[in-house]
């Protein structure tokens, strides 16, 4: 009897080994099945089988099939699921799952095994030449260079492979109450006014300018981000770095600005104690005066009535940049459904509304008050030209990004040494990537 029990238990244990092998070849996109690949549901959700089973027969005209939409913001999973549900009800026979994946590296690993979600973000470091192998052309959905910004970045061999998920304007984001309390009645538009404003804010006991040093990635706004375009007025600034030194001109100006903010005591008291999560709410609560980020940030503060934006003092342009891009995976098993839902999200606008983003579609009036404020100062907006393939290859060989340079420059005692080191590495990277 005991032997029988242990034998049965051993067999059960052995079969559990194969439970994890839900392979995608079984999943022909027909059922909302329960042995879907492992990492599908990280979100709090019971919508795995929410919409029930899709019909096994695929008809020619009405939409059917199953697709997975990947989003990067865990807070919005429910909102997207609600939108997906409405779409599924309008199109019976379809199944749309929402998958929350925050770390883009996970997506990249799945590229190598052709297991991408049907609608997903495109990793930023994929070279344009590789896009056709992993994504489906989107031209027939209705995007043209005339109706969406940043169209060209997604084009390879005349076909469009991905579009940006939002447009973002970058400027100084400030707390209006903090400014009022410090006695600042108009926003600083020159660097002298800026330092004077910082001094006034500091006198009220508030941190004038937030750098978010410890979390590192917010410093990516500056070098190799949009700062070059803002300071120089040239949307193509980053690509011009291929012809010269990386720490020079507008980049050096930005580094000096950051360093001065720290040296004059206008940054956070301890750079390694900053906390991004706390910061997003603290700026609304009036603990910080200003920071330099994109327009994707104000909605995150949850204090939109207190937040305003103005162009970086003395900058020549307000950069408009794209952000993460979305495409349809080549390994999708229901491309028609994917394209239809893609249109619903990105042309009809469901995506921008759900995420509260600024749409990249052209000819749309921007309703957000902080955008209207930002563009009211007469500083021209410039469309950021995305990094071209050569620049990406050089940055990969350089093995450092703008945040590394900024972090080091802000705290070093030897600025000339830092400048020399990075310019040398940049020259070496250009040589290495050239072959």
């Amino acid at each position, binding site marked *: 009897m005991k032997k029988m029990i242990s034998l049965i238990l051993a067999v059960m244990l052995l079969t559990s080994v194969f439970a994890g092998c839900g392979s995608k070849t079984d999943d022909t996109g027909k059922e909302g099945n329960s042995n879907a690949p492992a990492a599908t549901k990280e979100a709090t959700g019971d919508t795995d089988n929410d919409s029930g089973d899709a019909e096994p027969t695929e008809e020619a005209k009405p939409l059917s099939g199953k697709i997975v939409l990947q989003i990067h913001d865990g807070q919005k999973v429910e909102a997207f699921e609600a939108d997906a549900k409405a779409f599924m009800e309008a199109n019976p026979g379809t199944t749309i799952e929402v998958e929350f994946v925050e770390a883009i590296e996970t997506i*990249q690993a799945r590229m*190598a095994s052709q297991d991408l979600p049907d609608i997903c973000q495109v990793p930023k*470091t994929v070279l344009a030449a590789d896009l056709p192998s992993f994504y489906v052309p989107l031209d027939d959905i209705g995007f043209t260079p005339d109706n969406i910004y940043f169209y060209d970045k997604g084009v390879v061999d005349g076909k469009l492979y991905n579009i940006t998920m939002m447009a973002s304007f970058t400027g100084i984001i400030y707390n209006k109450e903090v400014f009022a309390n410090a006695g600042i009645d108009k926003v600083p538009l020159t660097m002298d006014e800026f330092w004077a404003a910082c001094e006034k804010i500091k006198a009220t006991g508030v941190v004038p300018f937030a750098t978010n040093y*410890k979390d590192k990635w917010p410093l990516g706004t500056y070098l190799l981000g949009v700062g070059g375009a803002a300071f120089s007025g040239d949307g193509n600034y980053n690509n011009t770095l291929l012809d010269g030194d990386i720490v020079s001109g507008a980049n050096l100006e930005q580094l000096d600005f950051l360093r001065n903010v720290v040296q004059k005591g206008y940054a956070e008291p301890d750079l*390694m*104690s900053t906390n991004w999560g706390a910061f997003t709410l603290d700026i609304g609560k009036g603990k910080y005066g200003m920071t330099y980020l994109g327009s994707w940030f104000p909605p995150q503060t949850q204090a939109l009535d207190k937040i305003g934006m103005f162009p970086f003092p003395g900058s020549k342009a307000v950069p408009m940049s794209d952000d993460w891009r979305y495409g349809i995976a080549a390994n999708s098993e229901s491309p028609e459904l994917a394209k239809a839902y893609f249109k619903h999200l990105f042309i009809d606008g469901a995506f921008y509304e759900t995420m509260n983003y600024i749409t990249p579609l052209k000819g749309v009036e921007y309703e957000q008050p902080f955008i209207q404020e930002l563009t009211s100062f007469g500083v021209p907006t410039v469309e950021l030209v995305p990094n071209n393939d050569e620049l990406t290859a050089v940055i990969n060989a350089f093995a450092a990004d703008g945040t590394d340079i900024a972090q080091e420059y802000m*705290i070093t005692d030897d600025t000339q040494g830092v400048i020399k080191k990075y310019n040398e590495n940049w020259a070496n990277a250009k040589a290495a990537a050239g072959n």
Partner: protein
Amino acid sequence: MKTLHRRWSKKVTSISFLILPLIFLLVFTYYPAVKLVQISLSDWNGYSPKINYVGLRNYISVFKDGSVFKYLFNNLAYIIMMVIQTVAALYFAIVLNSRIKGHNFFKTTIFMPYIMNGIAIAFMFSYLFSYEDGPVNILLRAIGLGEYAIHFFPDNYFVNFSLAFIVLWRYLGYDLVIFLGALQSVDGSLYEAAYMDGAKFFQVIRYITVPSIKSVITMMFFLGINGSLQVFFEPYVITQGGPAGRSDTFSTVAYNYAFKYQNFGKASAMGIILLIFIATVLIIQKLVTALAGRRGE
């Protein structure tokens, strides 16, 4: 006939028990290791279906960079704390092996950090070690020692010690449990004989306890060195390798090469170099203990 059958059935039993772990070992350890060597000889970018071999270029690049020594030097802080951790675990194990009051409670509390979620720990220590809002510094300011407020993540080498302390806190319990198990295996009659002969506590430790579990102690030191050289989680999650790379370790740099800069070839080369380095350390350690053992006779 019967003995033949018994011997054969013994063989079948042992083989069938071993086959599954062997398969797992081959698939999840040896095959990736072979692949790692293969990728280290190429310039693969992580997603392209083709592999382009470039010989030893990645290895030369790693040594020319100096990254081998620069970042391994940061790992040294973890090794130092690991020594403290192992000694402390041994001390606690000896003390808690007796039946003093509350020994179960202490064992549980010391072991608890080992099973806590890593991200939760990272978040907790980020807050605890904060210069502005951290409880440690708030307490110091409250009792008037504000000028001694500690920068736990300064822009000098000390940041590695702060992170290594978090590693110590996490893994002390694991070492403790292993040592406790080893101590249980020591024959009690040795202690009785020693006490009857009038031996004092430290003499007992030195002449009976430590030699009896010597192999376990050496194993824990080796595992500790192995772990210290490979540490990735704490510097990557808590300080992102900052400030300005001061807390970057060998593994965080390799990770960035692979996943941030698409240079899987160089990252794999770093992995193989680390493997060789750890194997060398192991061989040295084995030689030292063998020699010491021979001299002791």
